[in-house]
């Protein structure tokens, strides 16, 4: 992890793109504006954080902007990690995809499935993603189940004994 000072230095290099930094339990996080995500990741790649270990979504319900996307970057030669976070409002959950282009042209092909998962579970739309479809839920599913206001167990489970009443009720 870069220490707190190094994190502030990175913030200065990136300028207005960084909205906030946090250093908590040895974990350095840059909170950036959604428009600048591709530029920020490109800058961090030049600084050595060239491997994207993980990309995942978070729902900060009831706070707005509500939906968060986290990018866990890793510098393999210095064994150093940094996470980049952006937040988008739930009424316009859109952000540029980092998937297109090969690694030499500034893309992160590993984000493909993971952005699809965030889209599936949280409804964040990744602009420019080559194949933005649901990945884990069925294609005709409605709603984004990992959102905090999505009820757990809100859907009736169909067994053989209650199969017909539920299906008839739906018609």
């Amino acid at each position, binding site marked *: 992890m870069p220490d707190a000072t190094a994190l502030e230095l990175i913030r200065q290099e990136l300028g207005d793109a960084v909205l906030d930094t946090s250093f908590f339990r040895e974990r350095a996080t840059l909170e950036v504006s959604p428009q600048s995500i591709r530029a920020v990741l490109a800058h961090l790649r030049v600084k050595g954080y060239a*491997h994207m*270990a*993980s990309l*995942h979504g978070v*729902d900060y319900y009831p706070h707005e902007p509500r939906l968060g996307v986290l990018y866990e970057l890793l510098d393999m030669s210095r064994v150093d990690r940094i996470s980049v976070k952006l937040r988008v409002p739930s009424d316009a959950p859109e952000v540029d995809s980092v998937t297109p282009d090969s690694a030499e042209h500034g893309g992160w092909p590993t984000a493909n499935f993971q952005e699809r998962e965030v889209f599936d*579970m949280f409804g964040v739309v990744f602009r420019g993603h080559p194949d933005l479809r649901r990945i884990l839920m069925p294609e005709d599913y409605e709603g984004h189940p990992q959102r905090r206001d999505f009820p757990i167990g809100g859907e009736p489970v169909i067994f053989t004994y209650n199969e017909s009443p539920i299906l008839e009720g739906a018609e």
Partner: protein
Amino acid sequence: MSASPPTSEYRRREQSITLSPLGEQLEQSHDEQQTSQELLTLNFGPHHPATHGVLRLLVTLRGEIVHDIKPIVGYVHTGIEKTAEDKSYWKVIPVIERMDYLAYHFNSLAYIGAVETLAEVVVPTRAEYLRVIHMELNRIMSHLVWLGTSALDLGAISMFWYCFREREQINDLFEMSTGQRMHTRYFQIGGVAEDVPVGWTEKLRGFVKRMPSSLDQYGDLLNSNEIVLQRLRGTCALDAETLLSLGVTGPLLRAAGNPWDLRKAAPYSCYGDFDFKIPVGTVGDNYDRFAVRMAEMYESVKIIDQALEGLPEGPYITTDRKVALPPRHELATSMEALIHHFKLVTEGLRVPPGEAYYPIEGPRGELGCFVRSDGSSKPARVHMRDPSFVNLQAFSRMAEGSYIADMIATLAMLDPILGGIDR
């Protein structure tokens, strides 16, 4: 045919039929096929023994050559990440173990590590050693299932029985120390659930002594087996740079020559105490993937041996009563113990608000767990970065341009666990 004249009208007509135009037609269509090279889309799975689970592949073929693969997943999605948000921290452990069902100790350590980071829990050394022993046994077990099923895909059925014979011994050890053969819920926040029983270390020593010779036997059966070598060597290689850009870690990356292993690079738990090697391959073909995993099992045995020799005395779980349950005998004499027990069981432990990402080296690569706490006794978000899910993205690149039979072998060497992919 004899030259005798036809005896009936029917026989005369029969003789007049000539098949030569049909043969010309056949030859013509055969020539056309070779020039036009029709693409064939083949649906593979989800219920197929060679997919190692419920994985569905849409394979586009040009003749027998794989043109493109589109993996379709989600058939065993059970919403474990969503379920975890509705349970208190210690009740998440049993469900999260069921994600990658061959790496349950790894799943629980990734999650527990994230929670311990947030709550700043100090784990006793004996607990760390016991965790490492169980994880390395788990790694061997996972690799044995991989080896048995992969050999099955290559057409060798006896390897399956030999591998499962040793796997049973590991499961017996787990049953003795934790009470369960799989999904043991052994790792707890702050340590492990129980100390190992009397006689367990002796039993484990016997296993550690036997295992290298069993591994030698597997090697003897496979390493110079002409069929295995021809099926694996030089097939479906992919270089380390492409693998890294696709996010691939673990044995697949090491087979391509990149010695990245979190146990060495960023030692967590107590991996810094042990002396072991990281096996790497050279070209990253299927044979290297096979050889790296085989060599890893020897290293795991070495780690278990050292951990067993150096197993320190002391508590097996933290004595912080706000985190771990008090021992049973204290409940009869101490009011505080009773209160702590009641609070922990009914409400669970409260974790300070914050976010943590805890990566460990699972049997298939970087297994990271992201936990966000909002200060309550239930996690606000649990996400598992499962290596199978990310590694599957490289499958199409690996198998492009190879024969469909080599695609099956590559899928076996990829070692995807669908429970981990779909979560």
